[in-house]
């Protein structure tokens, strides 16, 4: 598959002041983003995420290495024709109205005045700014600016969209709207490069991620392959559980609560939960729910940047007295 964005051995440093030595922001970063994928760029503050995005958008030049947009160096203006870019905390010319702003940005992206006129109202409606279409951007809230920025980035229907913290500063409604828009881009086959500190959003939206730490790539891959699919624990909820069995469950659980005849327990490992569920069923108890808990991207990321060793997703399960039980599938059903 063709690479839409490719960075090869990018090195970039910044001088804190003219007389001080350069501080390295990127130390030989290499990765590629394939057409049509939603790619996440993860890293702590100062990891080099925004620097990479700025180099890709032609706002910064790398000290060494190269960045390519659709096979052309990102420094070339023509290479950016296929790019839509939403910077972090975007600012726009405040004297403009959204309609005027879209007209300017659209024309700068090679659209004709007629094309902008036909696309802008629908796009403003999509980002929920129809009512504010003729108000100056000066009075816009952070969330409104963010939504306008997204409209400006998508107006010329680019092949790739770079979104730097697109969900920051948005209210719940705005967050949902932006997420829907990002998923829409994926559906129409547009490549999305997303940079966000909210890793739950990245996990929800992205196919693949690269993790940067102190200017270096420390991990890259599909989210599904980076996170273990096996559950770390189960949350079990049941009622009418025999006291002896409830006592055994409590002994093995990391968290246990009993109230009004209902027990709730958190059972570590991938086997304890199903085993106890089966026993509850066999003893005539009523299983209300059995919810597996898997490691989230955020937990995985925190562990990774803290330098902790990978956690075995399958901790050894303590022995539980075995009884003849029905298969788990039947119990769950």
């Amino acid at each position, binding site marked *: 598959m063709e690479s839409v964005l490719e960075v090869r051995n990018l090195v970039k440093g910044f001088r804190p002041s003219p007389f001080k030595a350069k501080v390295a922001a990127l130390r030989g970063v290499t990765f590629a983003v394939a057409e049509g994928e939603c790619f996440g760029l993860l890293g702590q503050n100062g990891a080099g995420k925004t620097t990479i995005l*700025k180099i890709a*958008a*032609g*706002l*910064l*030049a790398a000290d060494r290495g190269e960045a390519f947009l659709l096979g052309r160096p990102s420094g070339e*203006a*023509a290479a*950016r*024709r296929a*790019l839509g*870019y939403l*910077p972090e*905390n*975007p*600012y*726009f*010319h405040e*004297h*403009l109205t959204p309609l*005027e702003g879209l007209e*300017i*940005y659209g*024309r*700068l*992206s*090679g659209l004709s005045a007629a094309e902008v006129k036909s696309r802008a109202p629908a796009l403003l409606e999509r980002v929920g700014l129809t009512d504010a279409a003729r108000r100056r951007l000066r009075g816009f809230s952070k969330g409104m600016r963010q939504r306008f*920025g997204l409209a*400006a*980035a998508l107006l010329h229907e680019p092949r790739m969209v770079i979104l730097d913290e697109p969900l920051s500063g948005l209210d719940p409604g705005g967050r949902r709207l932006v997420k829907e828009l990002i998923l829409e881009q994926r559906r129409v086959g547009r490549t999305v490069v997303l940079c966000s500190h909210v890793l739950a959003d990245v996990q929800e939206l992205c196919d693949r991620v690269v993790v940067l730490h102190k200017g270096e790539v420390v991990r890259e891959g599909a989210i599904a392959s980076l996170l273990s699919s096996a559950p770390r624990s189960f949350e079990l909820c049941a009622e009418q559980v025999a006291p002896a069995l409830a006592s055994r469950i409590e002994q093995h659980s990391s968290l246990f609560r009993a109230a009004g005849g209902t027990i709730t327990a958190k059972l570590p490992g991938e086997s304890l939960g199903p085993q106890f569920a089966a026993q509850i069923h066999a003893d005539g108890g009523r299983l209300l729910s059995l919810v597996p808990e898997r490691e989230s991207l955020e937990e995985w990321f925190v562990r990774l940047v803290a330098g902790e060793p990978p956690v075995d997703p399958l901790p050894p399960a303590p022995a539980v007295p075995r009884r003849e039980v029905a298969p788990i599938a039947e119990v769950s059903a």
Partner: protein
Amino acid sequence: MRDRVLVLARATFLEAVRDRVLLVVGVFTLGVVLFSRVLGWLSIEDELKMVQDFSLSGMSWLALLLAMLVGAFSVAKEVERRTLYPILSRDVSRGEFLLGKYFGLVGAIWTCLAGAGLALVLWLLVWGGHPTTALLAALLGLLCEALLLVAVALFLGTLTAPAVAAVATCGFALAAHSTEALRELTSDGKRPHFATLWSIVYRAMPNLEDVNFINATSAGLPIRWTQLLLGALSVSLWSALFVGGAVLLFRRREF
């Protein structure tokens, strides 16, 4: 390229026109034109000549003030507010961006000067005066001066901090108006070193007196249109040089 430069020029023009600075300076200049009548009454000279002289001088300062406030701060404002991110991340080169800025700023200042000039002509007509071709030449000269001052302000604005650029633009304007006078002052042979120095400065710097017809208009001297034409050509070339320099500097900037 032309389309993108025009779009950027229009956006810059719109920004400058909607900016309070332009409004304040424009209203101030209009006030100067209207107030000139009061000075005319107090003057022992021809009342309307006073109106014309005072207004033209006011407009000359207007051109300088606007070049300083709008031109020198223009690029820095874009960088500081990061409003250039959504522009330069598109199919727009740095050169196109600066050219668009330049033409937009020139357009805004020319509009302001044309407005003040029109107000002056109407004011003269109201009080029974007759605008002359000399007045037209003086107004055209002011437009030429604005062309160069904006280019210098833009160049200095990409080179250094905006406040420094504004002050340096003012210094440039004063020097570019004085080189000829200083050269003549030192050409009496008493100070040969100064004479050589000013002769070099005279040749190395643009001469804004080439397009300054305010004194000629005031003194009722005949207007040499060829001088205006050559002056406009010289100022245009110098402007192109400064804008070109600004583009070269801006290409190296990182944001």
